[in-house]
């Protein structure tokens, strides 16, 4: 705040604390309300004139009369403090950016995604990250499903990179995606309902029960693997969403098993489930090997070392858990 004495009786001049007119002549932002006693209001009005904001340069008297009234004075102080608090609140909640950066980032994202999603949603659900996993096309899905059922002939399991970011699933069949796991999960729930229906054990709440138990197992699996990765202190670029994607691929095999069980009975179920279990085991080992094991071991050179052995065991454990879960979640559906 300007000490009143320094400005009293002198014509208004831009002081050191003031931003000069060329910077649009704004007031000190931390000052709650302006010191408009006596002749200062006039000078202030004149200073605002050339700022080009479009405000009419009001004369001094209405301002002075307005501010002389104590009620409106207090009201203005209160209102302005409220406005400042509100602005702080918005700034805090909007990912810690200032106004301008917030607007800019939102604009960029809106341009990129074509849809204006406020960044507040981005805090809870990382929508832009999820979009990467859904950038698929029919050809990719076909090839990936083929890989899931027959991974034995595929040679190159590396994900291609483009300037430090992995390429979208559309362009590389090795990249994980979330479309197949999500659709497979929903299909699994519906097929389970169908299987129960053909055995006259169906009721709509059983669908919800199946869905929530499968989801609970998935969550448990993800947490267990994350915990073991943490304990083994592995430095991987395996994100949680990647892990969910990999663990969701087993639902495809489960659906195949249940459908064959519906059509051909227990023999068909065991045959197809056995085949799918083997395939998903090989698929997981070959995919996770590249992500969890160290560089040398991933290229097939056997490296002896306690750390790498531990990682190898971890990969084998994760891959072995898949067939077990596949059997556990489907055997009660096929009679």
């Amino acid at each position, binding site marked *: 705040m300007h000490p009143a004495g320094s400005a009293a009786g002198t014509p208004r001049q831009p002081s050191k604390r003031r931003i000069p007119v060329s910077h649009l002549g704004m007031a000190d932002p931390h000052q709650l309300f302006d010191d408009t006693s006596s002749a200062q209001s006039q000078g202030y009005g004149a200073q605002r004139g050339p700022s080009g904001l479009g405000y009419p340069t009001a004369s001094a008297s209405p301002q002075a009369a307005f501010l002389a009234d104590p009620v409106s004075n207090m009201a203005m102080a209160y209102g302005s403090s409220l406005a400042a608090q509100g602005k702080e609140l918005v700034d805090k909640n909007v990912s810690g950016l*200032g*106004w301008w950066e917030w607007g800019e980032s939102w604009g960029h994202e809106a341009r990129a*995604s074509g*849809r204006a999603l406020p960044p507040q949603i981005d805090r809870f659900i990382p929508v832009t990250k999820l979009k990467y996993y859904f950038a698929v096309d*029919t050809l990719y899905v076909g090839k990936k499903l083929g890989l899931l059922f027959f991974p034995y002939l595929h040679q190159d399991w590396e994900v291609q990179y483009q300037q430090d970011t992995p390429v979208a699933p559309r362009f590389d069949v090795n990249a994980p995606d979330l479309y197949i796991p999500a659709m497979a999960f*929903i299909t699994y729930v519906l097929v389970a309902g169908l299987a129960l*229906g053909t055995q006259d054990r169906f009721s709509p709440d059983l669908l919800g029960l199946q869905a929530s138990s499968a989801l609970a197992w998935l969550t448990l699996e993800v947490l267990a693997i994350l915990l073991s990765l943490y304990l083994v202190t592995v430095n991987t670029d395996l994100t949680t969403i990647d892990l969910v994607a990999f663990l969701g691929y087993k639902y495809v095999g489960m659906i195949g098993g249940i459908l064959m069980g519906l059509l051909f009975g227990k023999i068909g179920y065991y045959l197809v489930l056995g085949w799918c279990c083997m395939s998903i085991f090989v698929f997981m080992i070959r995919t996770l090997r590249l992500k969890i094991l160290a560089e040398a071991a991933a290229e097939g050179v056997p490296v002896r070392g306690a750390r790498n052995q531990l990682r190898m065991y971890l990969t084998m454990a994760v891959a072995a858990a898949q067939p077990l879960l596949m059997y556990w979640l489907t055997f009660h559906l096929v009679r």
Partner: protein
Amino acid sequence: MIMEEVEDPITKMIQPQQPYTGQIFQPTQTFTPTTPQPFYGNSFEDEPPLLEELGINFDHIWQKTLTVLHPLKVADGSIMNETDLAGPMVFCLAFGATLLLAGKIQFGYVYGISAIGCLGMFCLLNLMSMTGVSFGCVASVLGYCLLPMILLSSFAVIFSLQGMVGIILTAGIIGWCSFSASKIFISALAMEGQQLLVAYPCALLYGVFALISVF
């Protein structure tokens, strides 16, 4: 520009657009009542017609219905610009009515499944497409493509669908519904090479409707 406007509310308050000239506690008589207009006079004729005001455009509804009924015709992407929920409402009620004719009072299931299905499709399409899509648009498209399912449930009134013929007919109608829904979504959202990917979740949704009709 934005920053200085926000950071300077005081100036904005000190210099309002219109300087305050009255007194704080005395209301000023600034309202001058205009000459009273007759209720039924010029204003009545100037009003738009009721249907236009409600947004129900029969021509567009008919066009969209024809697009659904001709699955092989190329869809025009711009027809889905206005989200119109009147047609889908009518189709849902007709579906429930035909189920009622077959002795199944399952309006609740129809409502619940369509709500969950629309929500799921909305999330999926927003994640898969470059441009986003609004919920009303998704609900509108899915509602319109429910029309062939009404044919199926009216068949179920007369014949039982649990034989081989019934299964083939059900599969065909599910395919028809999901194909036309995905066709409209693809053309409206300009998604390339993803028609089957969009058709599959639609097929799941209409499959559940078919389950209600059949069993």
